[in-house]
């Protein structure tokens, strides 16, 4: 049962990534693209956690943790760039 659930979740996430890509390419606003990227990061964290479950291996959690910690830095930087140009002023 867990196996099916994992497969289902993977499928959902795969689809989600595809939808993110669509928004990423479509835009139209810069904010849309940044948002799409941010969502991709969050979905990726989920994927990494799922890989851990699927392979019964928790070696990958650090990757997920790190992505959660620093993934948004990119988002923030992109936004700061759009707002101020100079991201570190």
């Amino acid at each position: 049962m867990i196996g099916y659930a994992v497969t289902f979740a993977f499928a959902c996430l795969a689809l989600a990534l595809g939808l993110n890509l669509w928004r990423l390419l479509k835009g139209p606003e810069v904010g849309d693209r940044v948002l799409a990227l941010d969502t991709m990061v969050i979905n990726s964290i989920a994927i990494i956690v799922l890989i851990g479950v699927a392979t019964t291996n928790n070696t990958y959690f650090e990757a997920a943790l790190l992505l959660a910690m620093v993934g948004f830095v990119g988002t923030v930087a992109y936004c700061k760039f759009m707002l101020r140009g100079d991201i570190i002023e």
Partner: protein
Amino acid sequence: MIDLGILGEIAIAAMLVLGGGFALVGSWGLVRLPSLMERLHGPTKATTLGLGGILIGSMLFFQLEQGTWTVHELLISLFLFITAPIAANLVAKVHIHALRARHTPTVPGPAGAPPPPPSGADWATHEAPHPGTPASTSEN
């Protein structure tokens, strides 16, 4: 290995399905909602819960399947709790800034342009926060 009860299995599977489902819904919202401000709601919430579901599923899984407590997932949630609103906030700021600056692809959504605050001051994105107010985190 601890015997995995059917209930545990159901719980894990439910959490994973829920999580996957929410993640998908969040990303679907990103695609179908009419403008950036609406789209912003999808990922920041549905996706967090989606991830939350998967995290809880994972925690349960390692507890029930492996007999090892993992609390790493909570840590991930903690960080997301802190970072997700910031990301959303900044994207929103970019939007209203672009609206005001008339950057071309940016158009107001169904809610229109944001109204100004009732006081004389404008929003911080348009007007530097006044010194001495809580909104001001001046350099010193």
